[in-house]
């Protein structure tokens, strides 16, 4: 148990530090476990669909084995995207952040029922969306661009998932607010701060997709439902059509900060936990804080870099977003230095020497460490293809080709997912009280993911760059497929095979740990790794103050989106939704 110190000055009347009891730990652990459990459940289905996709591209169409469950490649692809990119991530992050905030502030949740409500909302949303996804009523991919129209339950499910994640954030804000009252002069601990900043960014970002769904899509989807119209005939008038360009713009208002919602939890672990896992320290805690604030400031006003190829958006606005996007590469490059320097401290403490030989002295024997370090290496390449995507006209070379899935499997598929696997390799033992089943399997999982992803991503990047093969397409059946594609497809199939093995190992480790008998109980409890700063000292006030950063973020958004969104709304067309195309 931890004890709060009483600050001498500024103690508010009647406030008292609140200690974390065993019961509080149980509450948090349960919430964390529930969220992560659902996330892993979603991933179980989503990951293996990916294998089928990779094989299909190489000409092996095994979807008939899944009938009548999954009818087509595109249905599988939609489920793969929704379960991996939206469900696995959101649930894991909400669980992880709940755990981190409580254990970093060393204070119980202020209103645990709020976080439980959040989980319930998110799960109902998932189940609601799962129905049309598996019934082949929502084969619209996770971007669901109108005029394609899915069943209304799909959109409502997504709304509940997002709203639930907001509620999870509120639960954390109340907790932080209570801690603040009890500790008016303390600096927010880094791990808690990073989690809270990410949540705030997420809540701003999701306004875009919420507006898109609620105003441009859901009413028409509901009007399309015989069931709903039967209940409330007036709903039939709600089918208005929508403006696809406005819809895209609102989606990508959300879609770029979405990737930082995926990435920042990984950064949080890399900065604030990983160094401790290899005997190192945080090289600069203040720079780490600055990086998170910069992401809050810059993550949203950049969405047009996903729309460089769109008609109807003036080049000037695209260039403005490109400018912010290039600036957004800066905190990530900063992260490269600060994190690697932190890890290097550990390697040298463990006897590492030379300019590069020290790398071998990192804690590669710990699967939690190894997985995350591999995630960082893969991300190094994902970041480069990301900067390329952001480079305005260079995007014309690669947009919507297989280069894109190559890129994002290195980022959300590795930086995020493999890091989350690494986190689980200490968090699962922590939550279950059992030893990891087993360290060797987990290490093998990390290695096979790393090697598999290198091959997979390289194949897809080059196939897209050199041959322009389109993404999101059943390439195995495409009439424009040519022999030059084959070497790259072979490379990706080898990659996919390794990834399949890796995914299997992951599930073995997870279920093995959770289900293993009491005899595999941990000898001593696992603690959340927390990296100490190399130079402990006070944090400048401006790195622990919300108002200027939030105000700056809002100002940049108004500047970068305000006028153009106004124009798009003023000029919007009500273009009819298309009948079902799948």
């Amino acid at each position, binding site marked *: 148990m931890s004890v709060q110190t009483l600050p001498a000055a500024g103690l508010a009347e009647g406030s008292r530090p609140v200690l974390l009891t065993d019961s509080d730990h149980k509450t948090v652990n349960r919430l964390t476990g529930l969220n992560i459990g659902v996330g892993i459940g979603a991933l179980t289905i989503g990951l293996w669909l990916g294998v089928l996709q990779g094989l299909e591209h190489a000409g092996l169409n095994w979807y008939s084995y899944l009938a009548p469950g999954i009818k087509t490649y595109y249905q599988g692809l939609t489920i793969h995207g929704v379960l991996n990119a939206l469900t696995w991530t959101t649930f894991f992050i909400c669980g992880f952040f709940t755990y981190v905030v409580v254990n970093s502030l060393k204070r119980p949740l202020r209103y645990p029922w709020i976080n439980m409500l959040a989980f319930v909302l998110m799960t109902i949303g998932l189940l609601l969306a799962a129905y049309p996804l598996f019934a082949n009523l929502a084969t619209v991919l996770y971007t669901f661009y109108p005029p394609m129209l899915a069943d209304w339950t799909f959109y409502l499910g997504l709304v509940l998932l997002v709203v639930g994640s907001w509620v999870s954030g509120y639960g954390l804000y109340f907790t932080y607010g209570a801690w603040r009252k009890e500790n008016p002069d303390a600096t927010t601990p880094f791990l808690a701060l990073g989690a809270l900043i990410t949540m705030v960014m997420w809540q701003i970002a999701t306004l875009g997709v919420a507006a898109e769904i609620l105003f441009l899509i859901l009413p028409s989807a509901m009007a399309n439902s015989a069931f709903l119209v039967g209940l409330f005939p007036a709903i039939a008038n709600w089918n208005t059509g929508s403006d696809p360009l406005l819809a895209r713009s609102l989606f990508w208002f959300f879609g770029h900060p979405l990737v930082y919602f995926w990435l920042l939890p990984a950064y949080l672990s890399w900065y604030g936990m990983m160094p401790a896992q290899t005997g190192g320290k945080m*090289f600069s805690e203040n720079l780490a804080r600055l990086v998170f604030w910069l992401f809050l400031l810059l993550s949203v006003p950049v969405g047009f870099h996903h729309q460089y190829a769109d008609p109807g958006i003036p080049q000037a606005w695209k260039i403005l977003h490109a400018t912010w996007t290039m600036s957004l590469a800066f905190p990530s490059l900063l992260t*490269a*230095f600060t994190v*690697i*320097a932190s890890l*290097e*401290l550990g*390697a*040298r403490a463990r006897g*590492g020497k*030379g*300019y*590069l030989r*020290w*790398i071998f002295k990192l804690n590669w024997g710990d699967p939690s460490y190894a997985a995350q370090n591999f995630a960082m290496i893969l991300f*190094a390449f994902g970041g*480069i*293809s990301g*900067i*390329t995507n952001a*480079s305005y*006209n*260079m995007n*014309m*070379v*690669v947009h919507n080709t297989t280069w894109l899935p190559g890129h994002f499997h290195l980022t959300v598929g590795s930086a995020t997912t493999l890091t989350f696997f690494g986190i689980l390799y200490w968090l699962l033992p922590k939550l279950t009280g059992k030893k990891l089943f087993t360290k060797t399997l987990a290490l093998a999982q990390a290695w096979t993911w790393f090697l598999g992803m290198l091959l997979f991503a390289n194949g897809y990047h080059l196939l897209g*760059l050199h041959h322009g093969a389109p993404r999101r397409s059943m390439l195995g059946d495409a009439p424009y497929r040519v022999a030059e594609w084959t070497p790259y497809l072979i490379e990706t199939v080898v990659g996919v095979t390794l990834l399949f093995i890796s995914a299997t190992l992951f599930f073995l480790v997870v279920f093995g740990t959770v289900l293993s008998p009491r005899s595999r109980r941990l000898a001593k409890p696992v603690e959340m790794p927390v990296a100490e700063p*190399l130079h402990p000292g006070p944090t400048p006030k401006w790195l622990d103050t919300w108002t200027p950063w939030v105000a700056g973020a809002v100002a940049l958004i108004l500047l970068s989106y305000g006028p153009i969104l106004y124009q798009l709304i003023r000029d919007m067309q009500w273009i009819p939704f298309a009948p079902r195309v799948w």
Partner: protein
Amino acid sequence: MKKEPDTPHGTIALLLVYALIIIFLWSNVYFTMLSRGVTQ
């Protein structure tokens, strides 16, 4: 009381290599774009 052992030599070495990789790969795509012709 700043002692030099904390100087991250390895990080610098690694990042200089990384910077070269970034420049090389990015330029590869840049020149591919140039080779495919103007659009306006």
